[in-house]
C-alpha cells in the first residue's frame, strides 16, 4: 500500500467517523449526566430528514442544519420529559424514539416528496461544501506534510471541523467548568447534587438537550454533508455504533475521538478494499462491510477491559426521605 492510498483511506475515515464522533459526544453528555440514551439513532435519523427537507425547500444547507438540530432537539425534549420529568424507563423511551423517527421520516417523506421515503437530491448551496484551508495548494509539494495537510486536514465540510473541535471543547467543559463538575456529579450521585442545592432535573435536561443538538448536527452532516439527500434508514445503526464507541471510550471525550476513528477507519478500509486480499485468503466484501458491527458486538460483550458507566445512569432521580 503506497502513501497516497494510506492518505486516501485516512481521509475517508475522517469523513466517515464524523457523524459517529458527534453522536458519541452527544451520548457522552447525556450519559455522563445519568440519562442513558439509546435514541441517538432516532434523533440522527430525524435530523437527517429534517435537514434534507429544509435544505431542499430553501436551498440553504445552513437552514437545513438548523432544522436538523430542531428535529433532534424535539425528540431529545421528549426523551427528557419521559425519563427525567416523569421518571419513565430511559431504555424504553429511547426505543420509542427510534421507532418514532424511523416511521415518521418515511411517512412524512412519502407524503411530501412521493419518492418512497427519499428526499430529492440536493445540490449546490443545499449541501455543505468542502472547505479548502489556506495554503493547501501551495504546501502540497512538500513531502509527507504537504499531502497530509492538503488531503487529510483540508478539504472537509465545516461540520467535520465542528465535530473535531467539539472534542477538546467537551473535555474543557467537563473538567474545567462548574457546569461540567455538576454534570459529572449528577451522573454519579444525584443526591449529592440535590443536597448541595442544585436542581437535578435542570442539569439533566441541559445535558439531554446538548445531546439533541449534537445529534442534530450529526444527522445534518449525514444528509447534507456526506450524502446529497435523505434516504430511509440512512443512519444504518450509526447511533448504536456511537454507543458502543462511547463504552469503548469509557465515557471520555478523547477516548471518543479514538474509538470513533477506529470505527471510521474500518468502514473506510471496507469501502476501499471490498474484497481484501491477504495473500492466503481473500476476505469477502460482506465480512468487510460487517466489520464495524462485529467490533460493536465485541465491545459490548466487554472484551475491551472494564468500562464503568456513570453510577446513577439509567435511574430516574427520586428524592429519598
Amino acid at each position, binding site marked *: 500500500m503506497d502513501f497516497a492510498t494510506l492518505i486516501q483511506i485516512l481521509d475517508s475515515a475522517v469523513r466517515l467517523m464524523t457523524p459517529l464522533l458527534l453522536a458519541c459526544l452527544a451520548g457522552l453528555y447525556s450519559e455522563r449526566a445519568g440519562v442513558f440514551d439509546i435514541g441517538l439513532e432516532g434523533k440522527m435519523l430525524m435530523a437527517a430528514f429534517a435537514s434534507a427537507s429544509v435544505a431542499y425547500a430553501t436551498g440553504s444547507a445552513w437552514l437545513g442544519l438548523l432544522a436538523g438540530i430542531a428535529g433532534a432537539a424535539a425528540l431529545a425534549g421528549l426523551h427528557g420529559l419521559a425519563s427525567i420529568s416523569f421518571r419513565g424507563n430511559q431504555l424504553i423511551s429511547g426505543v420509542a424514539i427510534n421507532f418514532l423517527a424511523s416511521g415518521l421520516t418515511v411517512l412524512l417523506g412519502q407524503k411530501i416528496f412521493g419518492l418512497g421515503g427519499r428526499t430529492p437530491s440536493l445540490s449546490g448551496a443545499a449541501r455543505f461544501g468542502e472547505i479548502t484551508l489556506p495554503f493547501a495548494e501551495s504546501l502540497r509539494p512538500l513531502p509527507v506534510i504537504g499531502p497530509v495537510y492538503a488531503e487529510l486536514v483540508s478539504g472537509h465540510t465545516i461540520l467535520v471541523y465542528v465535530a473535531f473541535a467539539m472534542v477538546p471543547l467537551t473535555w474543557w467543559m467537563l*473538567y*474545567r*467548568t*462548574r*457546569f*461540567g*463538575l*455538576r454534570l*459529572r*456529579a449528577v451522573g*454519579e*450521585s444525584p*443526591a*449529592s*447534587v*440535590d*443536597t*448541595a*442545592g*442544585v436542581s437535578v432535573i435542570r442539569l439533566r435536561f441541559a445535558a439531554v438537550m446538548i445531546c439533541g443538538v449534537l445529534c442534530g448536527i450529526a444527522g445534518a452532516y449525514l444528509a447534507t454533508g456526506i450524502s446529497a439527500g435523505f434516504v430511509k434508514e440512512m443512519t444504518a445503526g450509526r447511533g448504536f455504533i456511537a454507543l458502543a464507541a462511547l463504552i469503548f471510550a469509557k465515557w471520555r471525550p478523547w477516548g471518543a475521538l479514538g474509538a470513533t476513528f477506529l470505527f471510521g477507519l474500518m468502514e473506510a478500509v471496507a469501502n476501499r478494499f471490498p474484497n481484501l486480499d491477504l495473500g492466503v485468503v481473500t476476505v469477502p466484501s460482506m465480512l468487510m462491510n460487517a466489520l464495524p458491527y462485529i467490533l460493536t458486538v465485541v465491545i459490548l460483550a466487554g472484551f475491551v477491559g472494564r468500562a464503568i458507566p456513570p*453510577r446513577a445512569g439509567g435511574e430516574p432521580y427520586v*428524592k429519598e*426521605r
Partner: protein
Amino acid sequence: MTAAPAIELRGISKAFGPVQANRAIDLVVPRGTIHGIIGENGAGKSTLMSILYGFYRPDAGQILIDGKPVAIADSQAAIRAGIGMVFQHFKLVPNFTVLENVVLGAEDGRFLRRSLARARGELKRLAAEYGLQVDPDALVEDLSVGHQQRVEILKALYRRADILILDEPTGVLTPAEADHLFRILRSLRDEGKTIILITHKLREIMQITENVSVMRRGEMVASVRTAGTGPAELAELMVGRKVLLRVEKPLARPGAPVLEVQGLRMVDAEGVERLRGIDLAIRAGEILGIAGVAGNGQTQLLEILGGYPPAGATLSGEIRLGGRPLPLAGSQGRARRRAGIGHVPEDRQAEGLIMDFTAWENMAFGYQDAPQFQRGPLMDNAALRADAMGKIARFDIRPPDPDLAAKSFSGGNQQKIVVAREVERDPDLLLVGQPTRGVDIGAIEFIHKRIVALRDAGRAVLLVSVELDEIMALADRILVMFDGRIMGERLPAEATAAELGSLMAGVEPARADAGGIAG
C-alpha cells in the same frame, strides 16, 4: 442582652398521607451548644431535620434562625440560612476528589480553577482549626468511612454553616473514629457553632450534649438539660414505658455441646489470614457472646458457620454440629439450615432480606420448600401468607401488613422480620450477628427477649455484637476476639467492661492486676 437562639421551631407539623410524622413540634436550640435529639426509629426525627434542611415543606409552623423567621423552601435556602447537614448515608460523589466534592454546588463562578484553589486553602485552614485532616486530592471512594464523614462536615463548613445537623453520625464509625468525631464536634461548638445530633444511642447523648430533646410518635415529649437527666429516664421518655436495660433471664442450664469448632483458620482471597485458629464450643441452653471491635474476624466466623464463606477464601479446621462434622468448603447455606442452624446475618438489608420483596416472601426465604408450604409442585402462597400473619402478630411487626415491601418497614421492624423467620423455625443453633444495630429500643428489648426464650427452650445461641452492653446483658459466656484469635473467655458476672475492653484491644490483662486495670 441574651442572644436569640440559633434555631427556634414553633408548631411544626407535617403529614405524609394519613401518617402524622411531626405534630406541633416546638424546639429551641441556643447558639454554641450541642443539642441531642433522640427517639425511636420512626419517631419523626429525620422528617423534622429534613424540614429544617428544606427537603420538605412543613404543613404548619414557623422556623426562626437567630430569632428571625425564615422560609426554607429548598436545600439552597437552608444553606443560605447557614444550615449544614451530614446525612446518615453520605451524599458524596464517590469518584470525585475531596476537593471536587467540597466545591460542588458552592463554586466561585463558572470556571473551576479558582474554586478549587480557594477550597484547597480553606480546607487547610479548617483542618488546622478543627482537626479535620483529609487529603484534598484523594478520591472519596478510597477514604475510610470516618474520613468520608469528615468530608461531609467540611462541605458544610465550606458553605459557612453555623448550624450543623448530624443524623446518626456514629452508626458507621469505629469507636476510635467516633471519639475523634466527638472531639471535632466539641471544638466546633467552642468556636460558636451550633450542633444538632440525632441519635438513638443514649451513651452519646450523655457524653457530648448540653441539652436533649426526646421525640416519640411525631411529638416532642421533652426537652431537658443533659446534666439533669440520665439514660434510664431518657429511655423511658423515648418508648413511653419502663425499659429493661438489663435483660432479665433465668440461670442458664447448659446441656450437651451443640456446636464445636476446632482450629478454624481462614485465609481470604487477598492472602490475609482472617481467622487464626478458632476453638469454641456452644452448649444447648446457653448464649455464647463474641465481643470485639468490628473487623477482627467475627464477620468471617459467622459467614463460615452460616455456610457462605467469603469468595476465594481458604479454610481449614473442623466444625461439628451435634457431634457430626460439617463440610467446610463451598456454599453450604441451604445444608446448614436443614441441619438446624438458623442465621440472623449482620447486615439485614444485604443478607437478611430482599428489600423489594414483600414481608411474607421475606419471612419464608430459606424455608420456602418446607412441606407445609407446598401444594403439589407449587408454592402454597396462602399458607405462606397465613404463616407470615402469625409471625407479624407474635412479633408485633408494624405496620401489620404482609404485602408491604421489606424496604417500607423501619429498621427495627425489618430486623423483627428476619428474627421471626429464623427463631420460629426453632433451630438447634441460632447464629446472631449485630441483632440490634440501627434498631430502636422497643425492638431491641423484644429481640433480646426472644433470644433468651430460645435459649431457655434448650437451644444454643452464638451472639456476635460490637455493642458491649448487649453482650454483657445477654451472654452466658463471653469470648473476646482480636485479630482473628480468641483473646480470652470471661463470665459476664465476673468481667468488668474495662477488662473486656483491654482484651478487645489485644491486651491480655494480668489476672492478678485485673482489679487495678478495671479501676
